[in-house]
C-alpha cells in the first residue's frame, strides 16, 4: 500500500493545461526525489515521484513529520534533494542559479512572515527589486496586487506589518508571493496562524485569485478540510513522503485508497462532502435590496410587496454593506447602513462555511458575493439541506449502480 498511483495521475506532456488558455502556471515534475539527512537511518523523503499539472492547486497533507514540508522546500531548493530530479516547466531546478530560481517561484509561509522593518509596499516589492524592475513598474505592481488581495492601496501601502491584523498580514504575504508573477507558487501552511473566520475568507480569496490567474500552486497543510476546499488535487503522504493517495478531493472522499487515508480523512465523510460543494452550487434566494441613499418609503413598499422583513443594503458598486430589518430603516429618510461589519460569503465558499455563518447570523442565512465583492444573493438553510439531500440521493444511486456492477466493496469503504 505504499505507493498508489491513481488513474488521474497519468503523465501528460509539458502542456497539460486543462483546456484553459489562460493558465499562467507551468507543470511541476518530481522524479524519484530522495532526501536523506546525515545521521538518520530512514530518508525523510523516500523516492517521491509526482506530476503536478499546470494551473492546478495541489495540497500536500499528512501527519507531522511525513516529509510534506521537506518535499515542498526541495522545489525551490531551500532544501537540496539527496538524489532525484525536480523540474519546473520541464527545466531542472538544479540547472539554474539558486537565487534566480527562487525569484521565479513564489513563496508564502505561515503568518506571511513579512519583514517588520519594511512597509507593505516595500515587502511586496522585495522580489521585483531583486529582479531590478524600475520603480514605476514596481509601484504600479504593488497597487495592483493590493487591489487583488482586497486591501486599499492608498490606505495600506505605507503601513508597517505591525499596524496590520493577522489576516491583513497574510494577504500581504500572498501579494508578496505573487509580486513578480511567478508561474509556480509554494505555500507552507499559509493560513495556519489566523482565526477560523479570517481563514475561511482568505481561502475564498485565494480561490478567486486563482480563478483569475491559474498559477500552479503547491500548498502544504495539516488541515484536511482546507485541502478538500482548496485543492484541485490532494496528495496524502505517509512517513517518508510515501504517497498514500494522490487524487481529486471528490475521489479521495468517495474512495479512500487504504486504511491510512480513511483514518486521515476521518469519520463523517458525508459531512466532508459539504466542503466539496460550493455556495455557487446551490440555488440562491433574492430578497429585497436597497441602495445606500435610496428613499426609505420606496424600499419599504418594495419589501412589503415581496413579503420581506429585511433588506440587503448595497453601495453604489453593488457591494453589500448592511443587512437591515425594516424597523431599523424607520429612523431616517434615506437608506443609511447602521453597521459596518456585515459578514458575507464568497461564492467559492463551501457549504460548510455557509452553515457556520448562517448559524451565527440573526437572519439565519448568509449574503453571497461574487467577483470584486459584488452582491449575488442569499443562501439559506432550505437551500443547503436541499442540496445535501440531492447529493445523498446521487450517492445512493451511484452506490446502487456500482453494486449491480459488482464493485460494491470499494464504495462500502468510502461510506463507512
Amino acid at each position: 500500500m505504499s505507493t498508489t498511483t491513481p488513474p488521474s495521475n497519468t503523465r501528460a506532456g509539458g502542456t497539460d493545461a486543462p483546456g484553459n488558455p489562460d493558465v499562467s502556471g507551468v507543470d511541476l515534475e518530481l522524479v524519484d526525489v530522495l532526501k536523506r539527512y546525515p545521521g538518520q537511518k530512514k530518508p525523510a523523503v523516500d523516492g517521491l515521484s509526482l506530476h503536478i499539472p499546470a494551473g492546478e492547486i495541489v495540497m500536500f497533507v499528512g501527519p507531522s513529520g511525513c516529509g510534506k514540508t521537506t518535499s515542498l522546500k526541495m522545489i525551490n531548493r531551500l532544501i537540496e534533494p539527496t538524489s532525484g530530479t525536480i523540474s519546473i516547466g520541464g527545466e531542472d531546478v538544479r540547472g539554474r542559479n539558486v537565487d534566480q530560481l527562487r525569484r521565479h517561484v513564489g513563496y508564502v509561509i505561515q503568518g506571511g512572515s513579512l519583514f517588520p522593518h519594511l512597509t507593505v509596499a516595500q515587502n511586496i516589492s522585495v522580489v521585483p527589486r531583486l529582479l531590478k524592475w524600475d520603480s514605476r513598474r514596481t509601484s504600479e505592481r504593488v497597487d495592483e496586487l493590493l487591489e487583488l488581495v482586497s486591501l486599499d492601496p492608498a490606505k495600506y501601502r505605507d503601513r508597517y506589518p505591525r499596524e496590520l491584523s493577522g489576516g491583513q498580514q497574510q494577504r500581504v504575504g500572498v501579494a508578496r508571493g505573487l509580486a513578480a508573477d511567478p508561474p509556480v507558487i509554494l505555500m507552507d501552511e499559509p493560513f495556519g496562524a489566523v482565526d477560523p473566520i479570517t481563514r475561511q475568507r482568505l481561502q475564498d480569496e485565494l480561490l478567486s485569485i486563482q480563478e483569475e490567474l491559474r498559477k500552479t500552486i503547491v500548498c502544504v497543510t495539516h488541515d484536511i478540510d482546507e485541502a478538500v476546499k482548496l485543492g484541485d488535487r490532494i496528495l496524502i503522504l505517509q512517513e517518508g513522503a510515501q504517497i498514500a493517495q494522490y487524487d481529486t478531493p471528490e475521489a479521495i472522499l468517495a474512495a479512500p485508497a487504504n486504511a491510512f487515508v480513511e483514518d486521515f480523512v476521518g469519520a463523517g465523510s458525508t459531512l466532508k462532502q459539504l466542503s466539496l460543494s460550493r455556495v455557487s452550487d446551490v440555488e440562491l434566494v433574492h430578497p429585497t435590496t436597497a441602495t445606500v441613499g435610496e428613499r426609505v418609503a420606496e424600499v419599504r413598499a418594495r419589501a412589503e410587496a415581496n413579503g420581506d422583513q429585511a433588506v440587503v443594503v448595497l453601495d453604489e458598486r453593488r457591494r453589500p454593506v448592511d443587512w437591515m430589518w425594516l424597523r431599523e430603516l424607520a429612523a431616517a429618510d434615506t437608506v443609511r447602513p447602521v453597521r459596518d461589519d456585515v459578514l458575507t460569503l464568497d461564492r467559492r465558499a463551501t457549504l460548510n462555511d455557509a452553515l457556520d455563518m448562517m448559524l451565527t447570523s440573526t437572519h439565519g442565512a448568509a449574503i453571497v458575493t461574487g467577483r470584486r465583492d459584488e452582491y449575488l444573493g442569499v443562501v439559506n438553510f432550505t437551500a443547503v439541506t436541499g442540496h445535501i439531500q440531492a447529493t445523498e440521493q446521487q450517492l445512493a444511486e451511484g452506490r446502487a449502480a456500482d453494486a449491480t456492477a459488482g464493485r460494491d466493496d470499494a464504495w462500502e469503504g468510502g461510506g463507512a
Partner: protein
Amino acid sequence: MWEFIDERKAQIAFSAYQHVSLVLQAVLVATVIAVVLAVVVTRFRPLEPVANAVSAMGLTIPSFALLGLLVPLVGIGVASAFVAVTFYATLPILRNAVVGLQGVDARLVESAHGMGMNTLATLTRVRLPLAWPVILAGIRVSTQMSMGIAAIAAYVLGPGLGQLIYTGLAQIGGANALNSALVGTLGVVILALAIDALLLLLGRLTISKGIRA
C-alpha cells in the same frame, strides 16, 4: 573656576575636540569590527559562547593594566590610546550585535532566502536592519564607557580632556589643581551626555518605524 576656564578657553576646547574625536573614531572602528565578528560568530554557532565569554571577561581587564601592556607594543601616545579605547568599545557592541543577530526570527531569514536573496542581501537588507536597534544600544553603552576610558588613556599621553585631569592630580595642593581636575571631569561628563543625545537622534533617524519601540 570661570577665570580658570576663561584663561584656557582655546586649550580646553582643543582638548575637548580631541577627546570626542578619539572616542568617535574608536567607536566607529569598534562598530565595524564588532559587527563583522558578530556575523562570523552567528554563522558558526560553536563560537557564540566564546564571544560571550571574551566580551564579558575583556571588560574586567583594568584599563590601566591594558595601557601598560600596550605601551611596549605600540609605544606611548595617540596609538596606544586609540587601540585601548577601541578594544573596550568593541566588547559591548560585539555582545549586543550577537544578541541582535540571534534575535532575528529564523523564518524571516528563510523567507528572505526563499524569495531569492543571497546571503549578503539577507544580511544587509534583513538581518542587520532588524538587529540594528540592539546594536545601536550597544554603541551607546560603548560610547559612554569610551569617554571615561579615553580620559584614562591620557596617562600614556593620549589626547583629550584626560590631560587636564592628570595635570590636576599631579599638582595636588597646587594653585589650579582642583580647577584643572574638575574642568577635565565635568567636560567629559557633559560631552558624554551630548553625544548620547546625538546617538539617540541617530536611532530616531535610522531605526525603521516598523520596529521602533
